[in-house]
């Protein structure tokens, strides 16, 4: 028998589990919260103190770093709450009161800390706000001045208690509009107020002062929001987190689409809210859509159907040719050895990275000459759909060829050999055995090509000058007149109209795109 030796001294893998202690959990939650605050502060500093100066060094004017800094500061308390609540989450299933007590205590402390920071730095709720240093209330006759700070801005302007404010300059205001106007004013900006004093209409100019409001009641909404947020975090099912994050990240896009849809059905919008002529919610209309089909937008007369057909023709021709050429070239590059193969591969990659815009004029000349070639020129010369599609196809091909080559590379050689031995010709193998297996790839490339062709602007706009030949994007640009005011709701309607086929396309293609064949081959080829 050989002696058995242990490689390790003692058994260190056993960890003694201590009974849960509220105090320790509290400290851990707070510590995580502090770390969250520290990280967000560091992020804010990184954007404002590091990235922004770097841009400034290069004389780049931008507001992105500013937005990111604000975002980091805005998200800071929430990150802290989430970090602190993560400790409480481990009790949320079995001991709800404990989890709640823990999380709410933590968020209370963190909120107090952050508020103290705001107070000390004069930021957040304690940031100076524009003020006229008087308190107001809404009455039927106008905005009543209830109190005036002695020696303040209103007092200096000789406003009196009991004055009824009716307008700023000539714009009639209620209290909400008044506060909004005030909130947008800068320091020392003059506000000329119309008011009624003793039945007599008067005017005074009051200068805005920036003033820090130290009323602690202003903290209440923030605190309530923090506590509710923390409570939600504790009980939120963990698997929802990715969806919430996704929706959060997608929200700018969603808001954009929402606006487009709302705008097409209304006369005008403010933000996302459609308004009628009296600034009230409402004012829905179908006129934006009607005028598309009626062929008259702001005096511009047109027929939408030929434009639509042009778009469709470019997209379809492009999809068809790109798929055909890419799949054949991809097959050859993947499966065959021929002189210049490597050169061709690297050259197409370079072409793919080549800025197409720089070729606009040379290609213009080429198309112009092509126009003079008998017969061929009728189809692919300047000012023809074929010519436009040809150029677009050429720009799309490098990507397509590489994509297809990649897909063919993934099919084992044995599959092809097997088909050849089964009695198929090379072309039949390509057509019946290989192409069906790269169907997801063909569809992806087809959608790329179709959308590329459908949304094409620069090339159709350049190579169809001075003709009635225009596709939807080119037409869309014609709507944006340089001299007359643009009806954006009308533009949105045409934009949405252009989107419809893409939507339909996706609804049907989605299924195929997700359908990736499973199994059939195993091991290496």
């Amino acid at each position: 028998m050989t002696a058995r030796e242990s490689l390790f001294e003692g058994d260190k893998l056993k960890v003694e589990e201590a009974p849960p202690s509220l105090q320790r959990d509290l400290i851990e939650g707070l510590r995580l919260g502090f770390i969250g605050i520290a990280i967000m502060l560091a992020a804010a500093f990184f954007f404002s103190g590091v990235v922004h100066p770097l841009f400034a060094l290069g004389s780049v004017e931008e507001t992105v770093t500013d937005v990111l800094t604000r975002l980091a500061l805005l998200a800071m308390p929430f990150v802290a709450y989430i970090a602190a609540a993560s400790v409480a989450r481990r009790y949320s299933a079995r001991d709800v009161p404990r989890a709640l007590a823990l999380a709410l205590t933590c968020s209370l402390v963190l909120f107090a800390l952050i508020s103290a920071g705001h107070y000390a730095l004069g930021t957040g709720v304690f940031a100076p706000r524009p003020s006229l240093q008087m308190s107001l209330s809404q009455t039927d006759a106008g905005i009543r001045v209830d109190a005036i700070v002695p020696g303040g801005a209103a007092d200096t302007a000789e406003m009196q208690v009991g004055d009824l404010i009716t307008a700023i300059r000539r714009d009639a205001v209620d209290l909400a509009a008044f506060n909004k106007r005030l909130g947008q004013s800068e320091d020392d900006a003059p506000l000329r107020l119309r008011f009624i004093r003793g039945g007599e209409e008067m005017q005074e100019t009051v200068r805005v002062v920036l003033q820090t409001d130290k009323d602690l009641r202003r903290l209440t909404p923030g605190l309530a929001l923090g506590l509710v947020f923390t409570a939600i975090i504790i009980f939120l099912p963990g698997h929802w987190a990715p969806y919430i994050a996704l929706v959060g990240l997608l929200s700018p896009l969603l808001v954009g689409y929402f606006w487009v849809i709302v705008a097409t059905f209304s006369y005008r919008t403010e933000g996302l809210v459609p308004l009628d002529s009296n600034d009230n919610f409402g004012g829905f209309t179908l006129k934006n859509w009607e005028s598309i089909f009626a062929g008259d937008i702001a005096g511009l007369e047109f027929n939408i159907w030929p434009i639509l057909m042009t778009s469709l023709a470019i997209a379809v021709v492009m999809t068809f040719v790109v798929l055909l050429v890419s799949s054949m070239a991809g097959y050859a590059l993947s499966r065959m050895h021929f002189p210049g193969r490597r050169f061709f591969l690297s050259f197409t990659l370079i072409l793919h990275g080549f800025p197409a815009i720089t070729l606009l004029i040379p290609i213009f000349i080429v198309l112009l000459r092509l126009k003079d070639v008998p017969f061929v020129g009728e189809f692919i010369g300047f000012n023809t759909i074929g010519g436009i599609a040809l150029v677009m196809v050429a720009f799309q091909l490098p990507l397509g060829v590489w994509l297809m080559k990649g897909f063919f590379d993934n099919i084992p050689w044995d599959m092809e050999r097997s088909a050849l031995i089964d009695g198929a010709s090379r072309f039949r193998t390509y057509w019946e055995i290989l192409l069906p297996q790269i169907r997801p790839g063909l569809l992806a490339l087809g959608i790329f090509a179709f959308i590329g062709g459908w949304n094409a602007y620069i090339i159709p706009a350049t190579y169809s000058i001075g003709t009635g030949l225009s596709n939807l994007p080119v037409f869309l640009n014609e709507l944006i007149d340089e001299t007359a005011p643009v009806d954006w709701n009308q533009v949105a309607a045409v934009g949405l109209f252009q989107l419809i086929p893409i939507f339909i396309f996706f609804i049907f293609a989605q299924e195929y795109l997700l359908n990736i064949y499973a199994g059939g081959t195993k091991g290496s080829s």
Partner: protein
Amino acid sequence: MEIRIDNLTKKFGDVVGVEDLTLHIDDGEFVAFLGPSGCGKTTTLLTLAGIYKPTDGLIRFGERVVNTVQPKDRNIGMVFQSYALYPHMTIFQNIAYPLKLKKAPKSVQNERVRQVANVMGIGDLLDRRPGQLSGGQQQRVALGRALVKEPDVLLFDEPLSNLDARLRLTMRGEIKHLQKNLGITSIYVTHDQVEAMTMADRIAVMSGGHLQAFDAPDELYDRPKTRFVAGFVGNPPMNFLDVEVSQANGGFLAQADSIRLPLGKTRGEAAAARAGSVTMGIRPEDIQIADDGEVDGEIFVVEPLGREDLIDARVGPHSFILLADTEARRRAGERVSLKFDMTQAQFFDPQTERSLLWHQ
């Protein structure tokens, strides 16, 4: 179908796949190509299939030279390691594909596919797709697809490598049985010498693009013509040892360090004819642990195989693999005495690696 390969060479640029291969395969014979990875066996197979064109040499199917004949015109069936089933077709369509390409009428296709599927035991799977089948079922489909067009030659490219050990055993028997029944000339590429030994009528052992030996399994095992064949065929592999063979006291003696082994006359003379040291080979089953052994050694590792124990015994700097009865319950560290059955020993020229006993 008789296959005659004469002086076949296949090169990929400067890389030699196979060189100067001459091999005659009889009608209805089951031949295995055995060798380590990259020895040229699959290259030879694909050249026979018509996927590769020979650089040099002749391939004849019967009387017809097929060097430049397209794969589809050779009437061969092939089974791949990866099965190579068409994932977008049902099992029925997979098996029927060769018939469809031959433009066989629908009724004939239907009948033949069902027949083959029943023989292969996959008759109830015809509506499924390859992805829904297990590895063993996929391999049966692949075999069925190869058989359905009644090929003159069947080619197998390591068809069982992706199956688990148990299934491999079953399929081995089934393929052999099927081949004997149908009498189709078959070539079976494998790196598993057990597969080759159990299934093939003759084995072509290949290494580095060259044919090392082409013989019946027993012949290869008992009379290996090169050291490579001796080492590659047999499991566990043969033990090799460099020895000096000398004549002493009317007998012969093979000697290496402290090991001294008496030799019979035929083997002794053949080995002694080569001046200097020679390579001696001895199979694990020809070494016994016995009380009256000639050599003393120590057991280094014991690997229980169930039926017997695989023992690595060390004698000085030399190591010997041998098999022992599990009943003996050998332990590592134990000192034992080894008895060599020198009537089974093989001798090779260390330079040419050719056998000193079995000249051609």
